[in-house]
């Protein structure tokens, strides 16, 4: 099996060395030939593409299959096999697949995985495919690049605004959604004072999937225009802004407004607590509107920008997550795979998909259909337009591990075992070894 490793290194070397288009084509053939003799991809019968993603389970039942069958109707020589599983399972399978060069042709990607997969040579350079297909990349809202090459195209973007349970806040005597940190603390205290199991805010810090650091902690930083990195991409965790963010989270914890069980709470639990009216406010993905309404039709809630520092007046960074798409390096049908990518990014399809998912289109020219979607979606779009998308974890190597080490230190702070300064210094140290 070491042969597999050697082949991989060889391919990686070539990936770095080869720049011209002609050589890239040759390389692709060699790369595939390594595992099981290449078959010429364009000749003869229909081609079957495997497409692994976690999107279908999150969309209204059957709607993603419908979009894909429209694609295959337009392209009779291409068949698409959807491999659908929830996010965590998809990730586990892609990591195993990347390690043994058996990724499906087209893969759904999270910005946080891109750097590692690209480094392993598991996903292919899309810049090359775009130029081969004479694709107009200017219509793309964003591209995720590693060392100047595009490896992922965000198909749909989801922002993470503050979700506010209007009934709970009204009951607690808070009339408008908080806009500053002081207002938020105040509102959270009042909601927590309602008693019972109700708390003001939920903070999922489970270390198994430490996304809470990105969505629920760093979002406070970004909302005030802060950054956790220096200009040249080095960690900058000891800056006053990061410190004030962590101190603020600590003050929320000290005030007892965070729902119990935070240290092992998962994202699902956070949504669950909001849906069942156990917390007044959460920072959550817009994608969850449908889910919350389905599980709790009577919940009266709205979305608002994440509160910023009291004195902050600039544009607010809004954390986002993407459904990204990439193509496997080992795919024998890269041209066909790119056709599928093009289809999903096309003005019409991209608009449809965004509307279905309550996300924002990855194609700049696509307009989501607000008439068919939830009114909250329009509210969120307005918030989005006033701010800017911010997620500094996208494209970082080992981003999950970065979040985890931050998470572990934050847990020490929240349990009173460490000071904020010590925690940030230690995190800075461990991040520095990676970045």
């Amino acid at each position, binding site marked *: 099996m070491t042969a*597999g490793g050697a082949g991989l290194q060889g391919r990686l070397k070539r990936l770095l060395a080869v720049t011209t288009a002609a050589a890239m084509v040759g390389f692709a053939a060699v790369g595939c030939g390594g595992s099981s003799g290449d078959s010429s991809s364009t000749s003869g019968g229909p081609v079957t593409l495997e497409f692994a993603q976690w999107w279908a389970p*999150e969309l209204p039942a059957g709607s993603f299959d419908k979009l894909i069958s429209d694609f295959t109707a337009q392209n009779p020589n291409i068949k698409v*096999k959807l491999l659908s599983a929830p996010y965590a*399972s998809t990730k586990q399978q892609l990591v195993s697949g990347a*390690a*043994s060069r058996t990724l*499906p042709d087209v893969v759904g990607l999270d910005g946080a995985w891109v750097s590692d997969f690209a480094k392993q040579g598991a996903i292919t350079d899309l810049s090359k495919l775009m130029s081969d297909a004479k694709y107009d990349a200017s219509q793309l809202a964003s591209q995720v690049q590693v060392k100047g090459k595009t490896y992922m195209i965000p198909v749909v973007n989801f922002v993470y605004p503050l979700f506010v349970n209007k009934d709970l806040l009204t009951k607690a005597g808070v009339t408008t959604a908080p806009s500053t940190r002081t207002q938020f603390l105040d509102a959270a205290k009042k909601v927590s004072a309602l008693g019972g199991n109700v708390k003001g805010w939920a903070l999922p810090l489970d270390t198994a999937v430490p996304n809470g650091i990105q969505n629920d902690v760093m979002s406070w930083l970004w909302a005030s225009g802060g950054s956790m990195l220096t200009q040249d991409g080095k960690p900058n965790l000891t800056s006053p802004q990061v410190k004030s963010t962590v101190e603020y989270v600590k003050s929320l914890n000290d005030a007892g407004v965070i729902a119990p069980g935070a240290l092992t709470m998962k994202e699902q639990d956070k*949504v669950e607590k909001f849906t069942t009216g156990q917390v007044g406010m959460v920072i959550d993905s817009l994608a969850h509107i449908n889910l919350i309404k389905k599980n709790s039709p009577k919940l009266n809630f709205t979305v608002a920008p994440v509160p910023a520092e009291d004195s902050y007046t600039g544009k607010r960074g809004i954390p986002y997550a993407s459904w990204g798409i990439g193509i496997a390096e080992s795919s024998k049908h890269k041209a066909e795979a790119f056709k599928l990518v093009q289809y999903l990014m096309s003005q019409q399809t991209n608009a449809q998909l965004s509307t279905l998912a309550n996300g924002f289109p990855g194609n700049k020219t696509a307009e989501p259909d607000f008439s068919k979607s939830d009114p909250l979606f329009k509210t969120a779009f307005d918030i989005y337009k006033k701010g800017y998308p911010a997620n500094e974890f996208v494209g970082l190597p080992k981003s999950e591990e970065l979040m985890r080490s931050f998470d572990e230190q934050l847990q020490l702070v929240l349990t009173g075992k460490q000071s904020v300064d010590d925690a940030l210094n230690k995190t800075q140290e461990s991040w520095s070894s990676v970045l």
Partner: protein
Amino acid sequence: MLTRKRRRLGVKIGVLAGLCIGAAFAGLPVVWMLSTSFKTNGEVFQVPPRLITKNFSFDAYRQILGSASQLRFFLNSYIVALSVTALTLLVAILAAYGFSRYNFPLKKSINAAIVSVQAVPPITLVIPYFGLVVALGLYNTYPGLILTHTVFTLPYAIIMTTAYFNTLPRELDESVKVDGASSWTALWRILVPISVPGLIAVGVYTFMISWNEYLFALTLTRTDDMRTVPIGIQLLMGQHSYEWNQIMAMSILGSIPVLVLFLIFQRRFIGGLTSGAVKA
């Protein structure tokens, strides 16, 4: 005499009380599981908690049983678990016969190696194993999953079967061999039929392990038409929400085959008591 009777009664009541406490420990979580499967998702965290809620319904069961893809998980689990059981029994019977009836060089080492294999933490093997299964062309196939589960169930199955064969007197198979039959015939005509109770125990153990196995079933399959029940249950725990009632309903449904197997296993064993008598 009276005091003795009374003491007997006291002991009986004590044992019954102990059994009930133990049963509460064992059974209450399952009761809660059952109760959750009849709730709507909104009622799961209702305060105060209720065992039976006002929206009591069989919807979750209907959704599971009405969905072709969910039923496919059950079919897959049956195919895999039954094949694993059959294959494990076959291979284990042969190996156990070798260990029990022969003496040969390296016997101790081979046995020790087989025992050690079950000491290998499966989690550590996932990555190389994945590569191996892909290289063998068994990724996302039944044979891939069946062989994998078999390798993990085999060591203990061999240990159990060998132990059972060791309890059976050698005179039994020797008597057939005297008549000119081969060791092969002696194994299948004599040893296996009287070992049925022991083999059922091995089979049930194997079936349960395979039916409930999670890590490799997740890693070695990629499409829904190959996935098994534990993965199907996990698929109901999306990134964003738990379909509590369906998870519980599917777990309850998934446990039924195992429960039925256990019930049959108990009954069949009474029939096999005679072979237990051989031991005594």
